[in-house]
């Protein structure tokens, strides 16, 4: 038996009822058997328990108040608007691309497609400009050479 291994003193019993009250169901599990055993034998322990039971009795008179029926609905509605938690990087990436709302379902894939398109256009335009600049530079050099040749020819 547990109480035989862990006997408690009347002083500890007094503390126990002072802290947890007279209801033995509220006592810590590891001390309950020993305390009940002491209670059976000791008149003093019985008095201590009784003196603390009045307060328990009064505390139990405070009624349990039920939540309103709207609270459950409010909780469930308010949590549905939040982004659902995701487990791994892939799910996070998919959620990022697809979105969680109707608006997100339309806008996010559109953005996801537009971004590489814009990037391609940007790169394409820049490359075209580079080629134009290169052509212009080559043409300028050729004209300068022609002018130089003409100039040399006239000197001769």
């Amino acid at each position, binding site marked *: 038996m547990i109480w035989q291994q862990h006997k408690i003193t009347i002083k500890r019993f007094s*503390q126990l009822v*002072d*802290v*947890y*009250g007279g209801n033995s169901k*509220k006592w*810590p*599990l590891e001390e309950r058997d020993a305390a009940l055993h002491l209670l059976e034998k000791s008149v003093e322990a019985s008095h201590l328990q009784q003196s*603390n039971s*009045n*307060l*328990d*009795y*009064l*505390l139990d*008179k*405070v*009624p*349990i*108040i*039920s*939540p*309103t029926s709207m*609270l*459950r609905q*409010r*909780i*469930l509605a*308010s*949590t*549905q608007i*939040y982004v*659902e*938690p*995701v*487990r791994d990087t892939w799910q996070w990436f998919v959620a990022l691309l697809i979105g969680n709302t109707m608006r997100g379902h339309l806008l996010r894939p559109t953005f996801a497609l537009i971004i590489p398109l814009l990037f391609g256009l940007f790169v394409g335009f820049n490359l075209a400009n580079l080629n134009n600049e290169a052509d212009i530079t080559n043409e300028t050099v050729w004209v300068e050479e022609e002018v130089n040749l003409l100039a040399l020819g006239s000197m001769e």
Partner: protein
Amino acid sequence: MQKIQAGNHQAFTMLVDRHLNKLHGFVQRMLSNPTDAEDIVQETFIRVWQKSSQWQSKAKVSTWLHSIAHNLCIDFFRRIKTTVNIETVELIDPHQPANSKQQQDVAFQVQLALQQLPESQRSAIVLCHYQDMSNREAAKILKISVSALESLMARGRRKLRKILENQSADLLGEI
């Protein structure tokens, strides 16, 4: 809880159904104001949904829920920083059949006495007496040792006895 972590809202609904009444009882007894209590319970469940990834499988779900609700209650007390106002203490549940006038008076006096306790002592008594938490669970929620919890409980109950001392005979007689 693992399903909730995976984003399963149906599992979350089951969690709400299972713990709503008990959690509401805890917050209601801490605050004694139905409107504020419902707001805090709602905020607790929203946090559970949003921060479900922070839950560790070792922790008991009810302990975790109470821990979040308790922190929100403390934030609430810090925000309002008011003492007990008798007018804000509401006990009568309009959804339940009315008890006798005497019983309502007793409940009101006891609830009022509870509200006069310091927040830490009230938390300890509410968790252990009303929420049927073990001393270890309550200590974990309050982030204190079991001996510190016992000290809070003993002081709280002594103070309650003192507050109710004058009325105790009348109150017990009324019942």
